[in-house]
């Protein structure tokens, strides 16, 4: 049985609230060795991302061929987990109190580029949020890099897992993943990565990042389930596309690309051109982004004309239960 679970994220709806990031972190990554690590992070695009410059430091060239990747630096690329002066701010009984601030120097963090964006203000300034997690790739670069066979892709759901009993901490997976979604735990000397909330999946419950998302922009299900949201958005409506398909790993996390309002000229008149440059979106999602955007715009127009749109109804998530279609025998309603 070769099935693939997948996720679709509608970038038109992400608030950048980081609820998904916190839901994931609280559930899976509170150890000292992974305090810097975010299996799920939400970064601001355009930007350098998390870890810094991840799009350039992975183990794949733009034509999908292998290159030597880099292991990001804890301080400069991931950003060390901040320690705050809580004692001096909240608990000091005498003398002047300090403002709340990190105690050590900070160089980077999980959304360091927050809201910077790009484009001249106010004519064409823009940004959007890009939530990222392991893509549970069809051809995982991490698996290909592990000399010990410690990384496994499950045949029943396609989830990619690190077997930490087999892992000897060599970190070729960290280098090789072009999405930089394997993290090394230096305290335990093993690699760690998103497990797509496998224990929840086994109970028919969607991953925490998806269930907790107040924007209701995450969809989870099997790619081959014609009744499920993933198959519809990816294969039928063709509005969801993978991030950096050119890396060649076959990502199974898909994005509905962000439409944007028109820019304005110096006189404040609309230019007719979207603020987020299509060329920038193409640099993220490949040429397929143009068709996906056109389909999306057409569906939106249909809705504006009052004709109704099954695509928009699904994306708006009027019926949230339709966001998730797991193993139906066991799907249940919990957070």
């Amino acid at each position, binding site marked *: 049985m070769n099935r693939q679970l997948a996720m679709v994220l509608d970038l038109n709806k992400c608030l950048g609230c980081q609820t998904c990031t916190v839901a994931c972190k609280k559930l899976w990554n509170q150890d000292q060795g992974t305090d*810097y690590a975010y299996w799920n992070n939400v970064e601001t695009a355009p930007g350098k991302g998390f870890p810094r410059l991840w799009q350039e430091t992975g183990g794949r060239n733009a034509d999908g061929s292998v*290159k030597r990747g880099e292991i990001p630096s804890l301080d400069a690329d991931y950003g060390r987990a901040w320690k705050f002066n809580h004692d001096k701010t909240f608990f000091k009984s005498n003398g002047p109190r300090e403002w709340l601030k990190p105690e050590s120097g900070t160089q980077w963090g999980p959304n360091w580029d927050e809201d910077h964006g790009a484009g001249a203000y106010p004519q064409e300034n823009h940004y959007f949020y890009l939530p990222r997690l392991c893509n549970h790739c069809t051809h995982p670069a991490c698996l290909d890099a592990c000399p010990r066979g410690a990384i496994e892709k499950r045949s029943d759901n396609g989830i990619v897992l690190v077997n930490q009993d087999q892992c000897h901490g060599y970190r070729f997976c960290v280098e090789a993943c072009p999405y930089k979604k394997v993290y090394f735990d*230096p305290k335990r000397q093993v690699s760690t990565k998103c497990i797509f909330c496998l224990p929840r999946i086994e109970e028919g419950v969607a991953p925490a990042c998806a269930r907790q998302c107040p924007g209701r922009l995450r969809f989870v299900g099997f790619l081959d389930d014609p009744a499920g949201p993933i198959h519809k958005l990816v294969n039928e409506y063709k509005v969801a596309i993978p991030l950096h398909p050119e890396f060649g790993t076959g990502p199974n996390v898909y994005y509905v690309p962000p439409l944007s309002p028109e820019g304005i000229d110096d006189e404040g008149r609309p230019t007719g051109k979207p603020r987020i440059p299509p060329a920038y979106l193409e640099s993220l999602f490949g040429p397929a982004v143009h068709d996906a955007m056109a389909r999306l715009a057409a569906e939106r127009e249909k809705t504006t004309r009052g004709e109704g749109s099954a695509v928009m109804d699904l994306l708006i998530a009027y019926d949230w239960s339709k966001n998730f279609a797991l193993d139906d025998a066991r799907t249940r309603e919990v957070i």
Partner: protein
Amino acid sequence: MKTTVTLIAPPTAMQPGGYIATAYADRSQPGTSRADLEVQESTAGWTVALRWRAPQAVIDATDNPRQFIDGAALFAPTVKDAPWISMGTPDMPLEGVLWRADRAQPWRVSAQGLGSVQRAEAPAGWTTAARYANGTWQLTFTLPAFAALTVTRQLGFAVWQGAQSERAGLKSVTPGWINL
């Protein structure tokens, strides 16, 4: 027995998976070009001493995901002339001992081919004494019972310099078995 061994870098082309062979295709030089070896056998068992130059020792990496730790391993074939560079086979496994600079105790290790090394707690009495001074590691293994070595009397060893990101198959090794 006392000797100085010129070490080699095992070819990365043979590494399992598609990444290392390509990404490290340019790695042909070992991080450690030679090492001194001294082996003594007595009624108390084996004592094996290694000495190699390491301009920078890496003993601890608990705070740095980029840092690799210095290490060294001794191996002996359980069957004489088992493949060494490719780490034995299921029919001709290797047995050995692995030291890593951040650990007080060594591991007992076995291998049946590339990427197959299994680590286990070392038997009681297996100890290492490591000292780093003047840019040189001096490491002594005391191994009261090392059955494979006693049977085949062949020894190979590997050295990893963490400062050069050496780990796994990125290592410096003896070109073949050393016959004792």
